[in-house]
């Protein structure tokens, strides 16, 4: 029939396709085999390059073959003239590019290119930058290419300002680009190095304000895009606080010195070195953690020999030097006193504002205002809610306490998937606030009852607390870190959901412990209490273990020194 095409039927097509695939597979397998044989035989010549390029051209993710190629190229480098080598490199670069076009996210290919460029005597970085620009044009979020670009920019070297302009152009096209935001966070501190010794990564205020505007544009345009919020957090955040010794406490009764650090450390031979100088002469001591486990901890303590504590002298001076952290602290034990301490106050140091920054509060205040504006438009945006909470904490944790708690409630409602995380975060903030209030009141009593706490943290801050009330919360454990509370005398933890007591161990001054209405099932769980020498009163009413037969006897056996156990 005129003009009508005869076309293969679908079965014929399928059959033709199947045969073609079979053929391809055969070729692929035989080539792979030949390469491996040659490699084993040490025949690393150009034929291997040819064979591997056939396979890698189709499947650039065959890492072993890239290794083969590197071996061959290394071998050839020794044998070939510079002209021949230049030609070889040129083909290799061309081949790599063709592989990248097959798979622009091939780890092996990008790595091979890095390797090759690194070996060239005169690499053409401009060409490489151009290549990156082309691949990012196709996919602006290809982090493999971003990675390679950072490598090239560092080698070339490209001025950070140019690279920053490049990130600008890609963010303009599509701001959902973690790589691009991240690159900015690396480039900006390079472009604006801060002379003062402040924490690394801070920006001058004018730069910071410009960045904040940019990122606000992003989250006002699409508040559900996480990349912008993360960059926002980086802008307002600050680096880790400097290493410091937060607190030093010495007790005559227990003949013990306790140190609290700004971060968990592992003290011991071969790790952190801690020097103790008592009355100007060094003293060799054994350091241990309060719970007895050798692992990084905020708190370390040591036993003191009687000689350094005798009551003859008007005072004893204890100086602890943390060599790695380049920090030290001194405390004095006066004659006739049971204990002495020296502590950085959480209120002075604004210790708990470290989530978000030390920037000027005007900047934070205006950020808070725009976030609140956004929240009014997007009442259910979790990123916005969370940022508001963080900003409020950075500004004034106590002033905004009530408001913060309301935002937590909204946040939990809109993001039920993260309810547990939010509960923990809230607990942390409440605990921080309580610590602040306690310190302002200059007392050693901490009330944390009726706060819906789900987790205990910052316990290393509570080194000096004597009375702690944890009742009516949702705690499920008294964690090992609780053992840091060396001065604790009375602990109330009624009406929780406590199942384990790992932290109530070796508390030298603990006398009274209330654990009514919890979920303690077996008397063996109380084993840690045996290590508390002064424990005299224990309330256990309303726990499952009270129902069991023989509990009282068992407990009396387990805790012989406790005078009164109420079940």
């Amino acid at each position, binding site marked *: 029939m005129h003009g009508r095409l005869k076309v293969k039927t679908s079965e014929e*097509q399928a059959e033709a396709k199947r045969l073609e695939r079979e053929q391809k597979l055969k070729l692929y397998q035989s080539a792979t085999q030949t390469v491996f044989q040659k490699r084993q035989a040490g025949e690393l010549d150009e034929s291997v390059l040819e064979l591997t390029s056939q396979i890698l051209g189709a499947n650039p993710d065959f890492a072993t073959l890239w290794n083969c190629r590197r071996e061959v190229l290394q071998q050839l480098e020794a044998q070939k003239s510079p002209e021949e080598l230049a030609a070889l490199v040129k083909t290799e670069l061309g081949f790599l590019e063709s592989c990248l076009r097959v798979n622009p996210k091939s780890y092996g290919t990008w790595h091979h290119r890095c390797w090759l460029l690194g070996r060239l005597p005169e690499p053409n970085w401009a060409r490489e930058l151009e290549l990156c620009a082309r691949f990012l044009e196709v996919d602006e979020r290809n982090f493999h290419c971003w990675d390679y670009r950072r490598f090239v920019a560092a080698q070339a070297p490209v001025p950070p300002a140019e690279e920053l302009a490049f990130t600008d152009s890609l963010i303009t096209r599509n701001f959902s680009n973690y790589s691009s935001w991240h690159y900015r966070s690396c480039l900006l501190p390079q472009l604006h190095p801060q002379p003062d010794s402040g924490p690394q990564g801070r920006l001058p205020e004018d730069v910071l304000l410009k960045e904040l505007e940019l990122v606000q544009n992003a989250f006002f345009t699409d508040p559900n895009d996480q990349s912008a919020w993360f960059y926002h957090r980086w802008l307002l955040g600050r680096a880790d606080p400097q290493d410091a010794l937060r607190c030093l406490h010495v007790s005559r009764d227990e003949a013990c010195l306790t140190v609290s650090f700004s971060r968990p450390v592992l003290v011991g031979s071969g790790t952190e070195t801690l020097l103790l100088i008592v009355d100007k002469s060094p003293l060799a001591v054994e350091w241990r953690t309060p719970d007895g486990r050798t692992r990084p901890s905020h708190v370390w303590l040591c036993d003191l020999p009687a000689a350094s504590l005798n009551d003859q002298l008007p005072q004893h001076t204890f100086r602890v030097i943390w060599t790695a952290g380049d920090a030290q602290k001194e405390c004095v034990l006066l004659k006739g006193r049971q204990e002495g301490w020296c502590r950085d106050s959480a209120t002075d140091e604004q210790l708990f504002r470290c989530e978000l920054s030390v920037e000027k509060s005007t900047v934070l205040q205006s950020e808070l205002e725009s976030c609140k504006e956004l929240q009014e438009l997007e009442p259910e945006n979790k990123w916005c809610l969370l940022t508001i909470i963080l900003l409020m904490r950075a500004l004034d944790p106590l002033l905004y306490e009530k408001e913060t708690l309301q935002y937590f409630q909204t946040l939990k409602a809109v993001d039920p998937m993260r309810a547990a995380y939010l509960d923990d975060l809230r607990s942390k903030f409440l605990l921080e606030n309580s610590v602040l209030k306690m310190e302002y009141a200059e007392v050693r009593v901490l009330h944390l009852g009726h706060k819906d706490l789900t987790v205990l943290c910052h316990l290393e801050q509570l080194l000096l607390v004597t009375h702690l009330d944890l009742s009516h919360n949702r705690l499920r454990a008294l964690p090992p870190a609780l053992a840091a509370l060396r001065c604790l005398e009375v602990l109330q933890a009624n009406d929780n959901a406590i199942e384990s007591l790992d932290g109530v161990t070796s508390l030298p001054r603990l006398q009274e412990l209330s654990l009514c209405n919890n979920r303690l099932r077996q008397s063996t769980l109380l084993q840690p209490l045996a290590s508390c020498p002064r424990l005299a009163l224990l309330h256990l009413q309303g726990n499952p273990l009270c129902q069991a037969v023989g509990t009282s006897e068992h407990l009396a056996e387990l805790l012989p020194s406790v005078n009164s156990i109420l079940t």
Partner: protein
Amino acid sequence: MADSLPTEFDVVIIGTGLPESILAAACSRSGQRVLHLDSRSYYGGNWASFSFSGLLSWLKEYQQNSDIVEESTASWQGLIHETEEAITLRKKDESIQHTEVFCYASQDMDDNIEETDALQKNTSSVTSSTTTKPLDSACLSEETHSLYATDHELPAKGTPKSDGEISLEVTDVEDTLAKEKYCGDKTCIHTVSDGDKDENKPIEEDNTDQPKRNKITYSQIVKESRRFNIDLVSKLLYSQGLLIDLLIKSNVSRYAEFKNVTRILAFREGKVEQVPCSRADVFNSKELTMVEKRILMKFLTFCLDYEQHPDQYQAFVQCSFSEYLQTKKLTPNLQHFVLHSIAMTESSCSTIDGLKATKNFLRCLGRFGNTPFLFPLYGQGEIPQCFCRMCAVFGGIYCLRHKVQCLVVDKESGRCKAIIDHLGQRINAKYFIVEDSYLSEETCSNIQYKQISRAVLITDQSILKADSDQQISILVVPPVESGTCAVRVTELCSSTMTCMKDTYLVHLTCSSSKTAREDLELVVKKLFTPFTETEIDKEELTKPRLLWALYFNMRDSSGISRSSYNGLPSNVYVCSGPDCGLGNEHAVKQAETLFQEIFPNEEFCPPPPNPEDIIFDGDDKQPEAPGTNNIIMAKLDSSDEVKT
């Protein structure tokens, strides 16, 4: 040549506009023998694009058209048998009216440009779509191989020689057009003449105080005539629209190249501004406040799946869209953007229609770029030709400048059985597809046609200057007073291959209430200022200057029901000319509907088979492209030389 035409076909199609061309491709693709005729010397009918001089010749033709005296019908009357009757077709095209031309550019003819009449030249060759492929153009076809080895030679064969009877040779019409016309208090000169009157006027070039602007003279425009591809109908392709889908599905897209429209503009408070419509636009906008950004994004996001949130609009279904927008906290500028630039609706349109239009706009965003529209390089006129080419590849036969005298109807069956062409040849077929403008007054006597008002402007600057001067923009100017229509403005830059360097081609379109000039002049005055030799005050300078302008009205035969035509046999199908809308949905829908009506069991423009799946005859080692022997194809040459 013409007597070599076969006399038996399945389908005869008269008119090469977009719906007819799509139908031709569809019929030929499904194995029908197709004869595709056009009485004009160019493809596309009212969908065509012209070089500058081609457009001038087209204008002349319409001028001449009105002078044609009805010929006697006797020449073919004798060919009708007794059992038959004839339905006469229209002799002259009346779909274009009220053409008015104004030239503002300096008419110094110092370099003595010879005006060439492009309509007369037939160095036709359709260049392959693979020859030029600018990097930034949105190319729909991913495959680059040609279906047939002989593809490239295909269209050049057998160009019909011009024969006296239907010759469009325009000889002595200059005088009729070369008269002066008064427009307000300015003297506008019709430009078709080789006016040598301004020959001695010195060119002012030492205007150092003024910002330097390239001065384009009329002679330059004429000299660069071939750089222009001026569309008669100004349309864009929705990037998720029916036409794009069809182009991709049928693989016709390989014959064309596209560019994404770069800007959506708005005209508000006397100023042109850019409308942020994509996510990236909103993010980058310097004009919007943060809160506006959020409100706009929120509203647009809602529109994308508005059907899922009936609670948000249910109460407003009785209201107009503009009233509804007022309830959505959108600031006045945002309301304007959504109503006129995104939904592009009249203020009176209903909430649901507005939401639908907005959703459609948003759905199209991001497929090929940051705006929802594509523009075909070398002009809209390329598109019908692409479909014709597909038809020809599958064996369709083409004949331009081929008039059809009448349709022959069998009295007994009431069905049309043949046509009689201008040579008196009888060509038989089963189905006949006729474009509306070919139908006689008698056939259309019951029909009230709508009209489209069009203006074509050549200007020296963009209506909104930006970093890049290569912008393709679309702007809707809302009606000044109620009762008038919104005017759609499309501004094309030279990289769209529709105008010469340093100029812009601006199309204005609205549905007519008066003549095109009366409908559109006000908007033209708002946006542009006429070119004058002496520079006026600086404020005026900020507006782009008009170098040349054309106004005309085009008949809008869309939306006319088949039953309104008198006495058409059931196997005669009517295609309409261009409609006023922005997209090509109407034409595609019409073509598909008619095709399904004619061939209910055939697939509409299926993808062509892979070349390797085609079975060739065993003896014939050389693959033979079907139909190449018989193809008679001509093409308006205007743009070809530019392309190669």
